[in-house]
């Protein structure tokens, strides 16, 4: 039996899969780590379903610390993640659909007004916002507040408020159902606004979880 195992190992190593010609479809992947490969194949299986349809989607790659806007498998835009924390992420393995965009203060055109209405721009987008998904997932997007203690306090307050509300809900209703997965992402201020701009209602999101610390 041991002999057979050894022979099999040698044969497998001789016929080892060649990676050189393959494009880097999953960045920062250790192809000798079974757990990383398992996670990458899970993401790929979901991504192939999304990329087969004519629509853009998001891949939150926690292993590569990046949010990727993709279409047909092509990376259209990349947003670096500065920091993140997650809970209960393993509850669902499918794609999440965004319920609604973050609120945008749109200007209304007044036909009788003499002055033209200013269009909306990236600067009008929120820098801290929550995205809710179906199946249940909450993503809290925070922007980097380096050098601005007021903003830091506001953001932490908002994050705490989100948590307190969910705990309060559990305590109040006595709901023993498992907490929905949640993810807190910190990106730069510009990138937070860019993300708020890009997401659309019903947009599918995939999450690649890291498998090593």
């Amino acid at each position, binding site marked *: 039996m041991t002999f057979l195992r050894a022979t099999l190992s040698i044969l497998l190593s001789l016929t080892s899969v060649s990676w050189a010609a393959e494009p880097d479809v999953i960045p920062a992947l250790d*192809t000798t780590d079974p757990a990383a490969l398992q996670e990458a194949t899970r993401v790929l299986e979901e991504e192939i379903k999304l990329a087969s349809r004519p629509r853009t989607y998001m891949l939150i790659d926690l292993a590569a610390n990046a949010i990727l806007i993709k279409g047909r498998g092509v990376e259209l835009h990349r947003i670096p993640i500065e920091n993140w924390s997650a809970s209960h992420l393993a509850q669902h393995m499918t794609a999440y659909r965004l319920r609604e965009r973050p609120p945008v203060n749109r200007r209304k055109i007044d036909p009788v007004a003499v002055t033209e209405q200013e269009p909306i721009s990236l600067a009008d987008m929120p820098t801290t916002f929550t995205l809710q998904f179906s199946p249940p997932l909450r993503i809290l997007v925070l922007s980097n507040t380096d050098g601005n203690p007021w903003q830091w306090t506001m953001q932490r307050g908002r994050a705490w408020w989100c948590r307190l509300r969910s705990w309060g809900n559990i305590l109040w209703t006595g709901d023993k159902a498992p907490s929905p997965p949640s993810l807190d992402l910190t990106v730069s201020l510009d990138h937070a606004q860019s993300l708020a701009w890009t997401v659309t209602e019903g947009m599918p999101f995939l999450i690649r979880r890291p498998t090593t610390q």
Partner: protein
Amino acid sequence: MKRVLLSLCSGLMGLFLITLVQSSGLPISNASNTRSAAVDPALLHTLQVRYKTLAKQLTQLMPTQPYILVDTARNHLYIKRQDQVMLDALASTGSGTILDKPGDSKGQWIFDTPRGEFTVQSRLTNPVWVKPDWAFIEEGLEVPKSQADRLEPGVLGEYALGFGKGYFIHGTLYTRLLGKNVTHGCIRLNDDDLKSVYRHAKVGTPIMIF
């Protein structure tokens, strides 16, 4: 009473500690966080083959011909072929403003450039703008009854590429506004860039807008 307060305090303390762990950046999930010491070569090989097959499948879905990419946040239009950027052009995209529909208390136009994947559906030379209702309403004018009164030649440039629901990539007289979100949803380019896009794009060329 004291006991209730004590249990409440300890509960809050526990929640605080959980939050501290969560905000430390460590992944809290059922996924394995440590790599097993002994890796089964047969399992690893199976996983590698599966990964390679899926990676190939995804690669096959990627466009091999040139495609148009539009970044509405930064107002840029690119023509790309795989990783190669063939054109990087300053554009103008949707303003995001809204206009109420007269006589319809709930109806309104939202002037966004649509996001997602589209294809070039038509290629026009010397296009004539057929002004829609909103173009008159936003200027405080009466909507004309005759179709002939809606025609406005010479404002869309030499070419226009339609990508559905009345949206076009076209030229502009207001080149100083390129790089800004000022349109009613169409994508404007200067004359030279428009010519390049027209040359590269065929009916069916993918347009990805984000």
